[in-house]
C-alpha cells in the first residue's frame, strides 16, 4: 500500500469551494432580525477644537434610531488602549477616545455615530449632524512636528512618541578604522495604505437575557480583540464573544482594535438591537491604519574589500495622531533589531524617534518594520558597492553569514536559527543567469537602452514568538498558540486553532499536518478558527507566525491524539503500546499486520468507552499550547531586471526571480501564492504606491482611484524557486512566508532602477519611482546629457 505524502503536497485549498461559489459569509454578509445600521460622522479637519455638535436635525431624520457623540459615551466606552508598550523609550500613551471629545486630531477622526433602520437613512442623517469646529494649525511633516509649537496631544511635548535605541559594538570606532569608507544616504520610506479588499466591518448583537454580547468583526486576532474590548466596554470577558468570520485580507490593518468596533458593541447593548457598521473605502483610507512612513539617515562603514563593519541609522517614524494597538513595536524592535539582515555586521547603532502628527495612525502593514529595515540595509549595500566599484552580488556574498555559523547572534542581540544564505543567492543568480544578464545590459546600453539589474538578499524575523521575549518588549500578551485536534465517534477530525487565517490557507495546510500525522484522508479534517467561544485562546494571524507557531500547536495536539489512540489500540489488541506500529492511519501488532485497528475504529472505541484501559477518560482529542523557544528566520535572494525609458522616466519590470527559503514546505502551491502576493506589494511600494497629505493634513490620495493599488497588467510572471533549510525551532521545521516577498521586493526593484540610471550618475531617488521622479533625476544629474 502506497503511503500518501500529504505534507509537502501541492493540494488544492479546502477553503475555496465556498469562496468560488459566493457562499462564504463575510461580516457585511450577516443579517440579523432587527438589524440597524451605524454610520460615523468624521472630521474634515486634521486638527480642530470641537466647539459644539448639534445632532437635533439628524435625530429627527427618517428612520433614525440614535445619534451619539463622545459625551454620550463618557464612562461607558473607555479609551482604546495601546497593546504594545515598548519599555525604556519614554513612550507616551495619550488617551484615544472612541469618539473625539474636545479635539479632532486627523481627517477622519470620528466625532459622532448615527444609527438608523437602513444604511441609506444612516448616511442621510449623518450628513445632517452639524459640528462647529475651530480649526487649528496641523502638523504633518515629522521634522516640523518635532519643532512645532502645535501639539497633537497637549501632554506630549515636541510631539515625540518615543525615543528608542539599540546598540551593538561601536560604530564610531568602526568608522574611524583606517581605510574604512563611510557611505551616507537619507532614505524615505513612504507611507502606504494597506488596502485589504474587504473594508472593515462589525456586527454586534446583545442578548439581554444572558448578558452576552457577540461581535462579528473583520479581525486578524479575535481573542486579542476580546481581551481589549472587554476592558474598553467594561464587560466581563466570558460575556463577550468575538467572531472573525470570513475575512477579506488584512495585511496588518485588521490587527488593531479600532474605535468603531467598541462603539458598535456599545450601541448593541445600549439600543437592545443588533447593529452593523461597514466601512466605505473612503473611510478605510482615512480611518484604518497606514503603514511605513520613515525618514532615515543611514551610514554604513565598509572596508575597501567590501566588508561591512558598521551601520548607523537615525530614523524618524510617523505614528499619526494616536497610538494604534501594536504601533510602538513596529519601528523599534521589529525594525532596529533586524538591521543586520543576513550579514555579519559587528557594529550597529540605531536610534528611532517616533512622532505624532495630524495624520491617520500607523501600525503594522505587511512586513511591519522588517521591510523598512531591509530597505535601508539593501540600499546601503548597493551604495557601498557602487562607491567601491564592487558588483552588488559580490559585496553581498562577502558579508553573508556562513551556513556553518548558525545559530548566529547578530550585533543587535537576536539569534538566527538556521540558514544557508549563499545557497539562495547562488540559486537566484543561476536562475537569473546573472553573468549573461550583465553582458546583455552592457550591450543594451551601447544601443541606448537602459536596463537595470537589482538584488536584495534578506532575512526575516517572524513566527513570534517566545512569550517571555515579547513580554519583555512590552507586548501586553503572550504569543504562543493553542490547538485542539478532536476525533468524532465516526472517525472524522475537527481541528481548532487560535490563529485566524484570512486568505493564507491554513484550513488546508493545518489539515495537511493532521492528515499526515494521523493517517486520515484530508477531506476528513475540518479546521476551525476565528471564534473565541470555540477556541481556548489564540493570538492571531500576522507576522508570518500562523504556520510556525499555530501549525506546531496543531502538530503537537495530533501527537497527543496519536499517543492516546495507541494506548487504546494496545489495550484492545492485548499487546503493549511498544509492540504497535502505526502506518497509514492504522495500528497493527509488529510482525502481525493482520492484527490491527484503524484510528477511526479506535476513535469509535474511545467514545463507546466500553473497553478502555483502566483509569482512562473516554473520548479522543488532544490539546496543545506551543510557545516557541525562538523566532524563525526565513531568508532568500530576489533579483530583477528593469528597463527605464529615459525620455519618459517610465520603469518596466522585465524579469523577476525570487528564491526564498521558508524551511520545510507544507504546500508549495500556497507558498507560491504567498510569495507572489508579497512581491506585488513590495514592487508597488518601489514604483507606485504612496499616501500623500497636503500641509493642512488632507489625504490627497484619499480614494482608490487616487492611490495606486497595482493591477495585473503591471507585472511579468515571476520566476520562483526555493531552497529548504529546516528550522530547529519547531518540530515541523517550518518558517513563515507571508511577508518575505514584500520585504525583499522593494529594495530589489529600487536597486534595479538605480542600476539602470547609473550611466546618468544618479545615485538615489526616493520611492515611489514614478516616471516624473525618474525623469527629473535623469535631467538633474550631471550625466543628464547622456539621454
Amino acid at each position: 500500500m502506497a503511503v500518501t505524502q500529504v505534507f509537502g503536497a501541492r493540494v488544492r485549498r479546502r477553503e475555496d469551494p465556498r469562496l468560488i461559489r459566493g457562499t462564504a459569509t463575510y461580516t457585511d454578509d450577516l443579517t440579523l432580525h432587527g438589524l440597524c445600521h451605524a454610520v460615523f460622522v468624521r472630521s474634515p479637519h486634521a486638527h480642530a477644537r470641537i466647539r459644539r455638535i448639534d445632532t437635533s436635525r439628524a435625530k429627527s431624520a427618517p428612520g433614525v434610531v440614535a445619534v451619539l457623540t463622545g459625551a454620550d459615551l463618557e464612562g461607558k466606552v473607555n479609551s482604546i488602549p495601546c497593546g504594545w508598550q515598548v519599555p525604556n523609550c519614554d513612550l507616551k500613551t495619550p488617551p484615544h477616545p472612541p469618539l473625539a471629545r474636545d479635539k479632532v486630531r486627523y481627517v477622519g477622526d470620528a466625532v459622532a455615530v448615527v444609527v438608523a433602520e437602513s444604511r441609506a437613512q444612516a448616511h442621510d442623517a449623518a450628513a445632517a449632524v452639524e459640528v462647529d469646529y475651530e480649526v487649528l494649525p496641523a502638523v504633518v511633516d515629522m521634522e516640523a512636528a518635532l519643532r512645532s509649537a502645535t501639539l497633537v496631544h497637549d501632554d506630549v511635548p515636541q510631539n515625540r512618541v518615543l525615543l528608542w535605541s539599540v546598540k551593538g559594538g561601536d560604530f564610531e570606532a568602526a568608522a574611524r578604522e583606517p581605510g574604512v569608507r563611510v557611505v551616507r544616504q537619507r532614505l524615505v520610506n513612504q507611507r502606504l495604505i494597506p488596502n485589504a479588499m474587504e473594508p472593515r466591518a462589525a456586527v454586534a448583537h446583545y442578548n439581554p437575557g444572558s448578558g452576552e454580547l457577540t461581535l462579528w468583526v473583520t479581525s486578524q486576532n479575535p481573542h486579542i480583540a476580546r481581551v481589549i474590548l472587554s476592558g474598553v466596554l467594561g464587560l466581563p470577558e466570558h460575556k463577550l464573544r468575538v467572531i472573525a468570520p470570513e475575512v477579506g485580507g488584512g495585511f496588518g490593518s485588521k490587527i488593531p482594535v479600532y474605535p468603531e468596533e467598541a462603539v458598535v458593541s456599545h450601541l448593541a447593548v445600549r439600543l437592545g438591537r443588533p447593529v452593523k457598521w461597514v466601512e466605505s473605502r473612503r473611510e478605510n483610507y482615512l480611518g484604518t491604519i497606514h503603514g511605513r512612513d520613515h525618514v532615515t539617515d543611514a551610514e554604513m562603514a565598509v572596508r575597501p574589500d567590501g566588508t561591512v563593519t558598521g551601520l548607523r541609522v537615525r530614523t524618524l517614524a510617523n505614528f499619526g495622531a494616536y497610538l494604534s494597538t501594536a504601533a510602538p513595536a513596529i519601528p523599534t524592535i521589529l525594525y532596529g533589531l533586524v538591521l543586520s539582515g543576513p550579514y555579519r555586521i559587528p557594529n550597529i547603532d540605531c536610534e528611532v524617534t517616533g512622532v505624532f502628527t495630524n495624520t491617520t495612525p500607523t501600525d503594522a502593514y505587511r512586513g511591519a518594520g522588517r521591510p523598512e529595515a531591509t530597505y535601508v540595509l539593501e540600499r546601503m549595500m548597493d551604495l557601498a558597492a557602487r562607491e567601491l566599484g564592487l558588483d552588488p552580488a559580490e559585496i553581498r556574498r562577502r558579508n553573508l553569514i556562513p551556513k556553518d555559523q548558525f545559530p548566529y547572534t547578530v550585533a543587535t542581540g537576536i539569534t538566527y536559527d538556521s540558514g544557508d544564505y549563499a545557497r539562495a543567492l547562488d540559486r537566484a543568480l543561476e536562475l537569473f543567469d546573472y553573468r549573461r544578464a550583465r553582458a546583455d545590459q552592457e550591450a543594451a546600453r551601447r544601443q541606448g537602452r537602459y536596463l537595470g539589474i537589482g538584488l536584495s538578499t534578506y532575512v526575516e524575523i517572524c513566527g513570534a514568538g517566545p512569550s517571555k521575549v515579547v513580554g519583555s518588549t512590552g507586548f501586553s500578551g503572550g504569543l504562543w498558540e493553542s490547538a485542539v485536534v478532536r476525533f468524532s465517534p465516526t472517525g472524522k477530525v475537527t481541528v481548532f486553532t487560535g490563529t485566524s487565517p484570512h486568505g493564507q490557507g491554513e484550513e488546508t495546510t493545518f489539515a495537511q499536518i493532521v492528515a499526515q500525522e494521523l493517517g486520515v484522508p484530508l477531506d476528513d479534517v475540518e479546521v476551525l478558527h476565528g471564534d473565541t467561544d470555540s477556541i481556548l485562546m489564540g493570538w492571531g494571524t500576522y507576522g508570518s507566525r500562523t504556520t510556525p507557531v499555530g501549525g506546531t500547536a496543531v502538530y503537537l495536539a495530533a501527537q497527543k491524539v496519536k499517543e492516546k489512540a495507541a494506548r487504546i489500540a494496545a489495550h484492545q489488541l492485548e499487546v503493549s503500546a511498544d509492540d504497535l506500529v502505526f502506518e497509514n492511519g492504522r495500528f497493527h501488532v509488529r510482525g502481525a499486520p493482520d492484527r490491527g485497528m484503524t484510528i477511526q475504529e479506535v476513535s469509535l472505541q474511545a467514545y463507546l468507552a466500553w473497553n478502555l484501559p483502566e483509569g482512562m477518560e473516554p473520548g479522543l482529542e488532544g490539546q496543545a499550547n506551543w510557545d516557541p523557544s525562538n523566532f524563525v528566520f526565513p531568508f532568500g535572494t530576489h533579483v530583477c531586471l528593469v528597463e527605464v525609458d529615459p525620455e519618459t522616466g517610465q520603469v518596466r519590470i522585465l524579469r523577476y526571480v525570487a528564491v526564498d527559503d521558508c524551511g520545510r514546505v507544507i504546500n508549495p502551491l500556497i507558498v507560491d501564492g504567498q510569495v507572489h502576493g508579497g512581491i506585488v506589494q513590495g514592487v508597488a511600494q518601489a514604483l507606485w504606491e504612496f499616501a500623500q497629505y497636503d500641509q493642512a493634513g488632507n489625504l490627497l490620495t484619499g480614494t482608490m482611484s487616487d492611490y495606486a493599488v497595482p493591477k495585473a497588467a503591471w507585472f511579468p510572471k515571476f520566476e520562483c524557486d526555493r531552497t529548504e533549510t529546516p528550522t530547529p525551532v519547531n518540530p515541523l521545521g517550518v518558517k513563515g512566508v507571508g511577508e518575505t516577498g514584500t520585504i525583499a521586493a522593494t529594495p530589489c526593484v529600487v536597486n534595479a532602477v538605480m542600476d539602470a540610471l547609473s550611466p546618468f550618475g544618479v545615485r538615489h531617488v526616493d520611492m515611489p519611482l514614478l516616471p516624473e521622479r525618474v525623469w527629473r533625476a535623469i535631467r538633474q544629474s550631471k550625466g543628464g546629457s547622456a539621454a
Partner: protein
Amino acid sequence: MNVTVTVNGVRYSRDVEPRTLLVYFLREHLGLTGTHVGCDTSTCGACTVLLNGKAVKSCTVLAVQAEGAQITTVEGLAQGDRLHPIQQAFWDEHGLQCGFCTPGMMLAAVDLLQRNPNPTEEQIRHALEGNLCRCTGYQHIVNAVQAAARAMSAAVGAPSGGE
C-alpha cells in the same frame, strides 16, 4: 419604484428606492451576498456581475437601470454540483486567497473568455485591469484564466492554443 430582473435564471420583482445601486439590490433585497463591495469609486471590481451577458460593475448601475435585464452573479456560475470552468480553474490554480475579489474577478474573466476564447497572457492581464486583487499578485489568477480557456475550448471542441 418597482424593478423586475432575472438573476441567475430566477425572476425577481421588488420595490426599491430610486437611488438603490444594483449591488445593494442584489445583496440586500435578494440576499445574494456573493457580490461584494470593495470601494466607492468603481475602481476595485469586486462587485462585477454580468448584465445581459456583459461584465458591469454593479456599484455603478442603478437597480432601476437593470429593469428587465438578465443578470448573472457568482451564485449563478455553477450548475448544481458542477462548477463553471472558471470556478474550477480558480480552485485548481490557487487563483484566490482571501476570496473577496474572486466573484468579480471570475465574472470579468468569463466576459473576457466569451469575447476571446484563447487570450494571451497579456490580453488576460489587460482584461482584468478593472479588477483589483491585493492577495495573489495576479499570477495564479492569470494561470486560472488560461486553464479555464483551455477547458472551455476543449469542451466546445474548438481548437486551442491559438494566440
